[in-house]
C-alpha cells in the first residue's frame, strides 16, 4: 500500500524495531520506510524516485544531516511543505522543542524510556495521525 507509507527517520535500530513492533501490534498495517540518517531521508523524499509518505516520524539527533535541517528542507519544498511531520525524539530540551515548532513540525513527542509507555505512545500517535487526522489535500 504505497499510498499509506510512513517514513521513519531514526538512526537507532532498537528504537526502529520497537516502533515497528508497536505499529504492528496495534494493527496499523502501513508500509514503513526507514531512513537511518538525514541525508538518506532527503534522498528518499527528493531523489530520483521521490516517496510520498502520509506521515514522517523524524528524530532530531541524526548522523550527516540532523532532523531540524531535514524539516527545513521539507517545509521549503513545494511538494512536501504540507506533509505531517511528527518529531519523535529522546530530547526534551526547550531549545529543540522551540526550533521544531518554529520550523513547522506538526507535533513533538518525546520517546518514553519505559516499554509500556513507549508502546502506548506509538499507538496513540498512529491512531491520531493515520486514522483520526484528516490529511492535507494532495
Amino acid at each position, binding site marked *: 500500500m504505497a499510498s499509506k507509507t510512513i517514513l521513519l527517520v531514526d538512526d537507532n535500530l532498537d*528504537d526502529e524495531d520497537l516502533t515497528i513492533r508497536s505499529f504492528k501490534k496495534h494493527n496499523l498495517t502501513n508500509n514503513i520506510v526507514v531512513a537511518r540518517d538525514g541525508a538518506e531521508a532527503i534522498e528518499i523524499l527528493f531523489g530520483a524516485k521521490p516517496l510520498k509518505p502520509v506521515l514522517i516520524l523524524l528524530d532530531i539527533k541524526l548522523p550527516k544531516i540532523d532532523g531540524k535541517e531535514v524539516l527545513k528542507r521539507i517545509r521549503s519544498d513545494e511538494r512536501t511543505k504540507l506533509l505531517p511531520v511528527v518529531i519523535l525524539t*529522546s530530547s526534551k530540551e526547550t531549545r529543540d522543542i522551540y526550533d521544531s515548532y518554529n520550523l513547522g513540525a506538526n507535533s513533538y513527542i518525546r520517546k518514553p*524510556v519505559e516499554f509500556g509507555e513507549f508502546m502506548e505512545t506509538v499507538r496513540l500517535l498512529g491512531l491520531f495521525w493515520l486514522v483520526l487526522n484528516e490529511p492535507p489535500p494532495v
Partner: protein
Amino acid sequence: MSGRINPADYLTIFNAAHEGLVVHDIPNGTIIECNQKAADIWGYSIAEMQQMTIGQLSGNTPPFDQAHALQMVQEAARHGQERFEWLAKNKSGREFWVNVNLNKIELESQEYILAIVNDITERKQAEKELQDKEIRFRTLFESSVDAIYLMAGSTFIECNAGAVKMFGCTDKSQMVGHTPVEFSPALQPNGRPSQEKAMEYINTALGGQPQRFYWQHCRRDKTVFDAEVSLNSLKLGDKLFLQATVRDITEERRAKEALLSSRQFLERVIENTPNPMWISDAKGTVIRLNQALRDLLNLTDEAIVGKYNVFNDTQVKEQGFLPLVQKVFEKGGTVEFEIDYQTAKETQVKFNQPIHKILDIMISAVVDNNGQVVNAIAQHKDITERKQIEGKLSISELRYRRLFEAAKDGILILDYESGMIVDVNPFLEKLLEYPVKEILGKQLWEIGSFKDIAASKEAYTKLQAKDYIRYEDLPLETKGGKKAEVEFISNVYLVGSQKVIQCNIRDITERKRAELLIKKSEERYRRIIKTASEGIWELDREFRTIAANDKMCEMLGYSLAELKGRPISDLMPSEEIADHKIRMVHRQQGIGESYEREFIRKDGTTLWTLISASPIFDEHNQMIGTFGMLTDITERKQAEEEIRLLNAELERRVKERTAQLESANKELESFSYSVSHDLRAPLRGIDGFSKILVEDYAPKLDDQAKDYIKRIHKATVVMSQLIDDLLRLSQISTAKVNQVDLNISDLAKEVADCLRAENPQRKVEVIITPGLMAHGDRGLLWIVLENLLGNAYKFTSTKENARIEFGQTKKDDKEMFFVRDNGAGFDMNYTNKLFIPFQRLHSASEFPGTGIGLATVKRIVSRHGGSVLAEGKVGAGATFYFSIGGDDYGK
C-alpha cells in the same frame, strides 16, 4: 459664707456665663441643655436648641461637617477633653467661627459632653487681615528693587532679593551673617575708612536718629557703586535692630554730573579762569564778567553789566579797532588787538580808580546751531609790563629770557672768573627754597645747599679747566632741609668776550624714587620667577625662547643659553606640531589658555606639561610674545598611561576568560544534550527487549527469569529518573536567574496541589502561612518547593496523620522559609551528606529517590545568594530552612 455654692445657684451661673454652654449626649450628640448665650450664638431659642443635635449646629463645609462634629463629641468622650476651632452655622444659615472646648462630664451617673463655645468670628477676621497685611508687606519687601536688609548690631540678619542682586550675590546666605563693611571699599571717597564711618552711622541710628547718607558700596566681586543709604532703628520684641534701605544711585550721580558739566561747569570755568574776560550779548552789551576781569580793572558787576557796550567804547573807536569788532559780531570768528586803555577815558562805566594798561584783547563770537552770533567773549591779557620790558630788550633776548624763566630745570649763571652767581631762574629758586636775593652775588659753595659738598669748589676748578662737568646724581638739601636728588650739568661759554658758566640743575628725586621702586619690584619678580616651582617660559613673537627660569631649564634639561632664540616647536615631538600651530594662532588673536603639551628633553625622554599660556602685548596692542607657566605632569601622564595599559590588559584577559567560559558552557551544553538524548535510548532498548522477551517467550521462562526481567525494568526506570535529575542539576548551574517579587506562599500552594493530585491515595494535612513574599526566579523556586514538599510527602508516607508545614521563621538572626514534616526524619550526624548529589540516608526500597533533589535545592538557593540548612530526628520529622537573596545577597 461657707465657700460652697448652693446647687440651685448653678443654674444661674449656667445661664449667666459669657461662654455658650451646651450639654450633649454622647451617642447622637443630641442637645440636652444649653444656656442663653449658646442660643444667642446660633440665633435659636433655648427651646429650639433642645430639639437639635450637635450636627445641626455645623454647616456642610468639610471637614467642619455634621458627621465630623459628632465624631468630635465621641473623641472627647474617649479622651475626656477636646479643644478645637470649628466653622459653625447659625439659624439664618450663615457660617461663623467658634472656639469649642468639649469636656466629658457625669450627671446622675450618666456621661455627657459639655461644650463651652466662644464666637471667634471677629478674631478670625482680624487674623486674616493680619495675614493679608503681612503678605502685602512681605511682597513689598521682596519685590523692592531697593536693597532692604535688617541688621543686628552691624551684622545682616535678613535681606530681600533686591539686596542679594544689588550686592552681586547669588543667594541670601552670602549676605546673612556678614557686615556692610565687607560690602564697602576700604575707604570712602572722602578718604575715611569705611569701617569707622559705618560704625558712626550705625551707632547714631541705633541711638534713635534715622540716618540718610551717601555711601560707596561694593559688590561681592569688589566692584564699587554709589548708593544712598537710609538707616532706621527698629524695636522687635525687646531687641533693637537696624533696618536699612539702599538705593543704587550710580545713574543718578552720573546724570547730575552730566548736568553740572553742561551748565554749572561752564559757569565755573568762566568764573575761575585766570584770563580776565567778559561776555556780551549779540549786540555787544556785557552780560557777564569773571573775577579775573574784576581784579584787573578793579570794578564791580553793577558798574559794567548792562551798561558797557563795546561798540560805544570811545577808545576802541579812537584806536581804530571798531571795524574788527563789527566783523566778529556780523560774521563770527575771532579778532585780537592790543589796545592802550585808560579807564578814565571810558564814559559808560564807573571805575573805582583810574587805571592805565596795555591790554591784549581777543574777541570771539559764540554762534548758535544756525551759525547766528548770539554772544561774544572778550579775553583780556595785561601786557603792560611785557610791553615795558619789550621796550628795553631785543626780541631775541626776550625769547631767551622767557626760556630761562619758564624752564623746568633750575638754571644758574655764574661769572667764570669769580664764580659769582649772576642770575638764577624761578624754578631753581623754588627748588632750593632760597629767595633770589640770598643767592645773587654769592659764590656757589656759599649757598647752604652746596656748602657741605666738599667737591663743589674742586668741581668748580675742574670746570674751569675742562669747560664741562656733569654729575648724574648729586644729593642736595633745600633750605627747609628736604633731600633732593639732582642731575648737575655745567658748561662754559662765551657771551661776547666774557666767559660765563651755566649750570643746569634737574630735580630727579621722583625719577630716582620710581627707579628704585621699579628696581625693587623687578628684583622681587626676578626672585619669584627664578625660584618658582613652576617652569616659566617667555617667547617672542615667533615663539622663540627669550627667557626661561631655572625650573623650566631643569624640566627640559637644557641650559638657558641652549634655549635662547630657539623656536619652542624644536622641542616638541612631531605629533604635537599641528596642535601647536593652532595655539600659535590663538596667541596671535590675543587668547590665553591652558592645555597639556608634550616636549622632548635634551636626553630624549618625554616631558609632559600642563601649560598656562598668555599673549603679551606692547603699548600699541601688538602681540609681541607669549608668557607661559608650565607644570611637569609627566609622572601623572605616565601613571595614566600605565592605568590605560593595565585596563587594556585586564579587558583582554576578561575577553579571553569570557571566551573560555563560553566555550566551556558550549561543551557542557552539548554534553548535557548527549546525555539526555543518547543515554536514554539504550535504556529504552534494555527495557523494551526485556519486556518483549516476556511477551514472546513467556512459556519458556521460569519465575526466576521473569523476576530478573522485572528487576531489569525497575533499574531502567531509576536510571531514567537519574538522567533527568542530573540534567536538571547541571542546567541550574548555568540557567539565568530572573528575579522578581512573588508570593511564595501561593507558589507553595500550587506545588502542594500538584502533589495532592499525584498522590490521591494519601491523606496529608498541608499548612501554608499565607502572604509570604520573596524575591527570586519563579521557575527555580518552584523546583525548590517541589523538591522540599515532595520530600516531605515522600517521607511521611508511612505516617497515619501526615502533616506538612510551610512558613517563615527567624533562624540564626535571619528570616528563613521552612518546610517541616512529621515524617521519617533523619540522623543529624549525617546532615552534611544531605545536600551532596547521590548521597542518600534511606535505602531505595524504604523511600525511592535519586539523591539529587536536595543537591538541586542547595544549588538553586545559592544561586539566589541564600543558604539552606536542615534539622531532624530519626522518626520525628525533619525541617528544611532556606533563605533566598535578602540581606545575604551580594555579601
